[in-house]
């Protein structure tokens, strides 16, 4: 596939790294071609007109030109800066998690995925405006896993196929879902999951955001669910993410 000489994308800046004298390399998630790495020349100069538009978490339209190795940013314009994500450290941590999760799960394969782009921008918006971003982030995890093809099976045992009964179950990352007590008990590498946590997990998976918002899980259920998804994600990625540890550090 040959690139056009110049083209426009709408993107969220996932991360930036210093490069060369005063340049930055950006990792973007674009609406048009999924994850994409580009160069922003001179972006570290204080007087750069681009710099303010291409900070992490910013939603931006970019004009890109074909470059020798990577596309080059020629123009940048902010669509949404989500400013509270920079002004409130707790929100910065959550936004970093959202962005890191997507960055780790995706490759630069030029595949457009409007649903992922929409979920990403909606989630950053929700973290920006909602006083407690917990729900927005859990909803994002559950739906992102689905869009990436890792939707966990929560309604029937992932081993024997029996419909899940209203009792505590087990969760197997390897099997990609819930195991009934018969199949899961005593198996190495499976985690117990309470009926309560499973109920909210299923609810988030099936609902739109308005529906998910009606859920009011108790603090211990929130903690269990968060831990469960975290372990599943770590299993799938075969390594720990950085931002959850950061979120813990800033709470101290």
């Amino acid at each position, binding site marked *: 596939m040959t690139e056009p000489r110049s083209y426009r994308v709408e993107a969220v800046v996932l991360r930036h790294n210093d490069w060369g004298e005063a340049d930055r390399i950006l990792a973007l998630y674009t609406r048009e071609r999924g994850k994409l790495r580009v160069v922003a020349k001179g972006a570290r100069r204080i007087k*750069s007109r681009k710099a303010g538009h291409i900070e992490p*978490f910013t939603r931006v339209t970019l004009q890109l030109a074909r470059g020798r190795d990577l596309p080059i940013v020629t123009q940048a314009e902010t669509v949404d800066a989500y400013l509270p994500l920079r002004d409130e450290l707790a929100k910065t941590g959550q936004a970093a998690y959202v962005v890191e999760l997507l960055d780790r799960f995706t490759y630069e394969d030029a595949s457009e995925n409007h649903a992922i782009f929409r979920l990403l921008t909606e989630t950053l918006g929700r973290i920006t405006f909602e006083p407690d971003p917990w729900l927005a982030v859990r909803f994002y995890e559950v739906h992102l896993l689905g869009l990436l093809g890792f939707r966990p099976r929560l309604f029937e045992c992932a081993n024997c196929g029996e419909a899940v009964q209203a009792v505590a179950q087990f969760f197997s990352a390897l099997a990609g879902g819930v195991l009934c007590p018969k199949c899961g008990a005593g198996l190495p590498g499976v985690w117990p999951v309470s009926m309560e946590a499973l109920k909210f997990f299923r609810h988030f998976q099936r609902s739109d955001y308005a529906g998910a918002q009606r859920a009011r899980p108790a603090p211990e259920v929130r903690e269990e669910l968060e831990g469960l998804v975290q372990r599943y994600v770590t299993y799938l990625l075969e390594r720990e993410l950085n931002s959850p540890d950061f979120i813990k550090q800033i709470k101290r």
Partner: protein
Amino acid sequence: MLPEPIQNLIFALERLPGIGPKTASRLAFYLLRAPEEISGSLAEALTDLKTKIAFCQECFNITVAGRERCEICESGQRDGSVICVVEEPLDILSIERIGAYQGKYHVLQGVINPIEGIGPDDLKIRPLLERIRRGGVLEVILATDPTMEGDATAQYLHPRLKALGVHVTRLARGLPVGGDLEYADQNTLLRALSGRQEMG
């Protein structure tokens, strides 16, 4: 396949920021052809860098090995009641160049980066808080870069410094977002320094 010594040099150069495989090869072959004096003085400078340079135990700026404190910390001319907090020693150089700042510094030796896994514990934050607890400091100027990471660092420090009863101001609020202090021209920096704002 290249002989091992040159291959090793290329690998070593490639690990430097901003140097790709092509530049690394070009530099390695240049050094191979150049007079021995050029590679010799480079090798010597690189060895000295680690053996003759140390960090100031007060502010973590770079200083000559064997000295406990840097020149700025030792100086009787500097106002110890103001501390300017920067990411890197290079930022001190930029601010010193404008010649308008009379206070002292504290180098964090990095910046918070949640995605790369650099948290508050990885920076020289605890020594800063200890320095302030010892007394005599009235104002802390947070001069981290106006980037997401610099802002996150300032947001982390702000309540912790305030709790110690000092005035906290943010330098970068006068600077355009996304830049790097190292590249600020002197006018911009001077304006940002005199117009520093109380953190809300």
